[in-house]
Every structure is written in structure tokens, then in C-alpha cells.
């Protein structure tokens, strides 16, 4: 019960602390996903409905990647630098509740981008979705996994500048070199192998499997891997916060 109270209050506090930024962050995320959907259309010309479905689900996953792997690490790195993280560490609260509250913020900030991304894809490429209720599990699990990964990067990184560099590099990587927006078979073997080790690959796969009838997806495997990443990265982040230097 105490855990839930702490989780709720921490989530509320985190959202209130960025109340004037929530709108603009959501707007940037929406612009980002819409830009991708329209931009790829201009790049490739006549995009088929199936290619559109692949692109749209990749862009929706990217909305989580942007918040989870870029905004989350930068937010936490700033919290470290400004002493906010130590302030929370000085309170009698569960470290896991703190991390989960941050991940809930990631979910809230990602949702407009995910929804608008899917709607834009449907409208632009005439994508027909085959929506499974499993998506209600996939999105939170993807957020936990990617945001937890981002949190672990921020907490383990010794400096704000390094965190920012890693998070910016990661977004570049996931756009151009990972099977999120690009088909896996188009990538060289080395990049395929690297992608197999990173959670966004499985997040994109699970989103595709639960929203479309595209072939070659592996929902159960992706859910399991995402669950593993989520548990491991939250555990690492919480342990790092708990650790006394």
C-alpha cells in the first residue's frame, strides 16, 4: 500500500514538475512521428499499404524510443546534476517506485506520438490495422523496457554531457541502422546481430505483431525479451540509486 502511495505521489510530482513542458514535448513528439511518416513517403514515392504498415508501426515505436532513450536519460542526468536525484534518495521511498514513476511519465509523454503516428499512417498510407488487445500489454512493456534502459544509461553514466551524447547517438542509430524503421533483411549481418541485443528491435516487433498482420513477427518471443529487459534495467537503475558511493 505504501509502495502504491509513493508511486502515485512521485508520478504526480514528476508530471507537475514539467506541467509547462508536457504540451510542447508532446507536440515535438507528434511532429517527429508525423514528419517521419510523410518524409518517408516523399523519399520512397509510392508506398504500398504493407510497407506503410511497417513504417507506421516503426514510427509508433520510435515515439517511445525518443522519450524513453533520449528524454528519459537527459531528464535523469539533469536530476543528478541539479541534486534532485539525491533529494529523492534522501526521502524514505522505494527506489523502484521512483523509477516506475519516471517510466509512467515516459508512457504519458509517448502516448500522443504513438496514437497520432498510427492515425497519420492510417490516413496517409491507407494502412489497415488488425488490432489485438495485446497492444495494451505491449505499449507499457515497451515503455518499461526502453525507459528502463534509458534510466540505467543515465544513472550509470558519470556525466550529463556523456548521457546526452549517448542518447543522441542512440536515436540516430535506431532511425538508420536498426530494424525499427527498416526491414531487418535490408541491414548488414553485423547490424542485424547488434539489433538482436537491443530492446527497440523487440518493441517494434511486438507493436507490429499486435497491430498488423505483417509476416515474420514473433510476438511471444518479443514480449518475453521486453519483459526481461524491463526487469533487468529497472533492477539495475534501482540498485544504482540504492548504492552508496
Amino acid at each position: 500500500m505504501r509502495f502504491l502511495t509513493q508511486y502515485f505521489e512521485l508520478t504526480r510530482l514528476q508530471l507537475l514538475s514539467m506541467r509547462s513542458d508536457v504540451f510542447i514535448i508532446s507536440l515535438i513528439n507528434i511532429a517527429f512521428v508525423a514528419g517521419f511518416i510523410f518524409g518517408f513517403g516523399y523519399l520512397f514515392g509510392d508506398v504500398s499499404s504493407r510497407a506503410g504498415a511497417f513504417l507506421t508501426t516503426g514510427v509508433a515505436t520510435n515515439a517511445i524510443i525518443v522519450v524513453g532513450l533520449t528524454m528519459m536519460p537527459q531528464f535523469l542526468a539533469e536530476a543528478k546534476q541539479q541534486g534532485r536525484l539525491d533529494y529523492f534518495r534522501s526521502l524514505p521511498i522505494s527506489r523502484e517506485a521512483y523509477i516506475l514513476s519516471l517510466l509512467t511519465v515516459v508512457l504519458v509523454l509517448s502516448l500522443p506520438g504513438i496514437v497520432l503516428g498510427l492515425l497519420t499512417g492510417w490516413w496517409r498510407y491507407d494502412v489497415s490495422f488488425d488490432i489485438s488487445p495485446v497492444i495494451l500489454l505491449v505499449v507499457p512493456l515497451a515503455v518499461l523496457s526502453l525507459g528502463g534502459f534509458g534510466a540505467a544509461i543515465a544513472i550509470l553514466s558519470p556525466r550529463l554531457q556523456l548521457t546526452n551524447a549517448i542518447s543522441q547517438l542512440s536515436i540516430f542509430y535506431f532511425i538508420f541502422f536498426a530494424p525499427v524503421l527498416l526491414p531487418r533483411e535490408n541491414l548488414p549481418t553485423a547490424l542485424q546481430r547488434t539489433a538482436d541485443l537491443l530492446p527497440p528491435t523487440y518493441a517494434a516487433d511486438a507493436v507490429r505483431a499486435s497491430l498488423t498482420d505483417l509476416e515474420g513477427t514473433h510476438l511471444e518471443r518479443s514480449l518475453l525479451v521486453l519483459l526481461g529487459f524491463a526487469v533487468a534495467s529497472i533492477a539495475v537503475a534501482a540498485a544504482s540509486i540504492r548504492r552508496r558511493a
Partner: protein
Amino acid sequence: MPVLDIQSLVKRYRNGTMANDGISLAIEEGELFGLLGPNGAGKTTLVGQLLGLLKPTAGSIQIDGVDVVARPGYAREQIGFLPQAQVAMDDVHIDELIFAVARLRGLSRSEARARTEALIERLQLSQFRATSMRAASGGVRRLAGFATAVVAPARIVVLDEPTNDVDPLRRRLLWDAIAEMREEGTTVLLVTHNLHEAERFLDRLAIIEHGRIVREGAPADLRSVVTERLRLEVTATNGLQPHPALDCEPDRPGSYLFDNADLVIVSSWLEERRKAGEIVDFRIGPPSLEDIYAASVGADTP
């Protein structure tokens, strides 16, 4: 039994810096205890270990007999904390912050609301309650931070520079609130550079330098430790040449320190200069806490 008992505390960082070098302190219930020392003396490291944010290299810390090095969670439950840096909560309104911390510290919704309202009233923050932490002035942010430190019952309240940026009127309110807490049995550990407030309000203090306690006791007792020196304050006309027995203080014109043994010589010289019209008024007194501090931490103090 002291509420807070620190014994032979050593903290050496991985880079080899010795931040605390054998610190021992025993602080009683309801005591207002001060930690003084120059920047980098080891005060923040000591507080960090107390709160369980840092792990001591050696030594023990006990709160009410409980080993909080082994159980840092217990320390966090017992300690209300105001950090030196402003609590960076950007868009959170002041009343929302106090309420949220009350809830996080275990108060029920109704208790948290009542305590929040009481503190807002007490610290005269009503007109700022819906002001965000980002928009509030430094002094108001400090008071909001103070409110979060004391919003829930605690055995010990650690306040790091609580009156920084706070205007004189609210500073008084804050000291009144601290006095009330003491009467209720809360122990207060104050980290400060404000020697005037330390002299006026603290029951006891420790001066830390290079990670060690160099002086400890009540301000009045510490003054007697340096009775070999006296302070002279002079109001003079232009052109007064100080007596060779007087040590000038560059930052305090008209203020001198001299040895107790030179009291007769200095008194005669003062009388002569007054008759000659060079001195309008003078006062000889015991050393202030500032003198004790300066004598304790050496000339390289910032």
C-alpha cells in the same frame, strides 16, 4: 543515550580524498547543534553518510541506538532534510510540493493537508502557495524547502544553510519554527556559514576542518578557549596609527585583536589617543564566534 551518536567516522573517497577523518559527535534530544567549517571541510560528506547517501569507510553512526550504516532506510525515516542546493522542482507549486513530500514521508492525505496548511500559515507563504518553484524567489524556495524538511514528524532535522536568501522577517519566523521543534524534542543539526546566527541560536557546535573536528562545545565555552585574545572595536578620526600590539583585520576596519597580556598597555594607549581626539569611542570584549572560527580553521579559510 544521545539521539545521534557518531563514532570515529572515516570517509575516504575512491580518488583518495579523505573527507572525514575520525569524526565523533554525540547529539542529544532537542539539541540545536551546528556544523561549521570552510567549503570542502567535510560537512556535506558527513550529512551524506548520515542520510545513507554515502557509505562510511570506517566508524559508526547510530540514531536512537540503531546502526544506520547497516540500515540506511531507518535513517531516512528518522531524518527530515533540507539540502544546501534548492530543491529543483521547476513547475511544482509550493503547496503541492509540501503536500507531496508529506505524503511520501508517510502522512495520510488529511494529515498531509493539515500540516501543509499549518506550515504555509506559519511561514507566511500564503501569497506564494500557487507559485511554482521555478518562479519563486530564492528566499521563498528556501522556506518551501524548509517546510518539506519539517512537514512530517522526525527525530532529527538536518538543515543545510536554511536561512540563505531568506529576508530578515521570514528568517525570524524560521528560527521561531526551529525553536518550537526543539521544544517538542526534535533534534536539529544545522550546517551553516552564518556565524552570527550560529552564535545566537545554537546550543552547541563543532568546527570542522580538513575532515576533523577542531573545536566543539557551546559558543560561550568556545569563547573561553581563546581568552588569550581580546577584540577591540574602535571608532576613530582619520589618521589613527594602531598600536604595535594590535593585529589589524584587513576586512574589518576599526577592528583589532590583541593578546590578553597587552591589556594594560593597550588601555593606556587608548586613553591617550582619546584625549588627543583621535579616538571617539572604543569597546574591548571577548572574542566572537567569528574569532574562534578564524582561529580554528586557519588563515586559508575562504
